[in-house]
């Protein structure tokens, strides 16, 4: 088993845990945390392929990851802000109670 495969397995596990968390939890903050976990798995993949992938461009994976982290931080900030606003409005963060936008 090559080092790349080990990384990929860990990343797949991380992704699976994040996905399960995002799909099963009803607390909006925990869903956000699950999504962050999935992003981390993706970052891990990018780093791993960058190190072991054998591409010519050096550090392409690392640069990508830095961008993703920045975007993820921004995304989390927006998400948390939405959750806070919603909490102020409804006094809850349970996602299954958020159904005002149904058709």
């Amino acid at each position, binding site marked *: 088993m090559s080092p790349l495969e080990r990384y990929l397995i860990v990343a797949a596990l991380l992704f699976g845990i994040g996905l399960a968390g*995002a799909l099963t939890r*009803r607390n909006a903050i925990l869903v956000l945390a699950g999504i962050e976990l999935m992003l981390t798995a993706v970052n891990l993949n990018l780093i791993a392929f960058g190190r072991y992938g054998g591409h010519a461009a050096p550090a392409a994976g690392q640069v990508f990851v830095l961008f993703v982290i920045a975007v993820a931080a921004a995304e989390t900030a927006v998400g948390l802000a939405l959750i806070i606003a919603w909490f102020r409005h409804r006094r809850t963060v349970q996602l299954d109670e958020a*159904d005002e936008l149904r*058709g």
Partner: protein
Amino acid sequence: MNGLAPQLWLVPALPLLAAGVLACLPRRACRLAAGLAIGALAVSLALSLAALAVTLAAPGPEGFRAVVNFPWLVWGEHTLHLGWVLDPLAAVMLVMVSLVGLLIFIYSVGYMAGDENFTRFFCFLSLFAGAMLAVVMANSLVLLFIAWELVGLASYLLIGFWFQKPAAAAAAKKAFLTTRVGDLGLFAGMLWLYAATGTVVFYDGGRGCLESAAVSTLAGRTVTAGLTLSAVISLLVLLGAAGKSGQFPLHVWLPDAMEGPTPVSALIHAATMVAAGVFLVARMFPIFAAAPPGATGTPPALQAVAWLGAGTAVFAALIAVAQTDIKRILAYSTVSQLGYMFLGLGVGGVAVGMFHLLTHAGFKALLFLGAGSVIHGCHGEQDIRRLGGLWRAQPITFATYAVGMMALAGVPLLFSGFWSKEEILHAALGWPVSRGPFWLALAGALLTAFYMTRQMVLVFFGPYRGGAAGAGAHDAAPPHESSPVMTVPLVLLAVGTVVLGFFGTPAWPALQAYLDPAHAAHFAPDLRRLFSAEVLKLMALSTAVVLTGLALGWWLYGRRPVTDPAAPDALELVQPGLFRLWREKFRVDEFYAATVVRWHAGWAALGDLLDRWCWGGLVWLVQGLALGLAWVSRLVDEMAVNSGFDAACARLVRAGRRVAGLSTGRLPGYLRGVAAGALALGLLLLWGGCR
């Protein structure tokens, strides 16, 4: 050409303009309305007097004549000219109409005070006076006809002024329709005249239809049964004149016109409406008098005028004898006096007829305004049987009325009516055709004196019978004299009634010389003529006749004062059958009702039937058809078009609702969708990668 003539259009234009302004004034502007109307007519009077002065100063055997013509309608090679003329005939009429009209206007201020339609009244009065002035001045038969119809319209409006009274509305309609019958004749005459001579302008420097060239053309053509074209046209015009001037058989409207306010009666009977007919004949006299070359004797048209006048004079006087309404007696006397005027025109020419027209205008206006004063003072009572003894209560009215009455009756020497009637009798005596009109006129004079005495005695002498009748509470108040605004015109007219006569006496026939300048030498002042045997004999005869009439009237009514308004008339006791016939006006109205009106009503009923069933049915059918079509169209709309559309819409809504159900609004569901999608995508890639 004188400087005044081109400006003379202002004379009729000012009152017409005043009428137009008055029509726009609000109802409460009484003072302004009366001021405007009177002011406009006063300016007209001033202009008329200036015009009279101009014509009086005119030299020449033909007299003064200034014409202003202008083209009005041009079509093809025809040109229709309008215009006005200033000659002695127009000038005296202008002065008479504006002077009498002005006095009546002033009088109306008092008589109509308090009427809620005061402004409207003065508007119509102005229209009336303006239209009449236009008739007098017209130098074109078309313009004359236009103004003539305006006079008819104004009379209709004024007779029906109190249109809330059914009698007034009916009288207005009757006046309008009856005069229209005559106007048809005038219109036909006008068309024929245009067809024959190519012009309707009276005087046009030799080309006018009243000038010798056209007149000899007309007289030279024979139409039928020995009548020349000029005679036929004259007879048609005479029909129009008879309608306007209330001659038999078209006189029926004139007595009914009494339903209007009394100043209107005065205006119609004295100055404007009825004088128009006489004036028309006087204006078109050259055509009436036209004789074919070589012919001798009186033209048939003039004979018709004379006989019509003489017959009407006696006919109307007989009716007047038996009337009881103070205004109705005067109305029939007007018809009778108009007959005299026509007689004068027929036998003696323009000057004779016009002299009587002028004197009559004065004293008849006086009599009507006096009657108005009586009615005003006695709270609307018009029945002479319920009046009486008013000389004490209304001294001024009595005195002036007496002057008017004596002028109308023809009391000798001092009153204008005597001289003008004398002139007519004199002309009738010398008429070569027949003595008949003379004897008729003499009989008319007797009757006139008689019925005026009867009226005078019943109204002003004896006891006042208004209170005794117990007709109503309003009779309780005693009669009173009218206000100065009403009595001053009376006094002025009374003075004029006396003075005017002296301009036409045989000794100094100034008016005749003025109106008939061709024979001016014949009319030179000469005191000896007054004492010639012929004139003296005639004067003695007519004086005897008049005095007989006065005495007869006094003997029948004055000897024993009438005390009971319900008592039968003194004449009725003597001749009950004749009296009833006269009181019922020879049943002319009934005759018309049984013939013309019934015939008319029959046609109207037929028209109604046609309207109701034939045309009405057609309309109903079309309506039914349209309704049926509309119903079918609605059915198609509702069943086919609407239902298909509705079904499509309903399905769209259902489908939309189903699609909208997918959007639950729940985040976990969406996330699961995203995950499933990503999984499917991954599997697809994996599967694709394996291959």
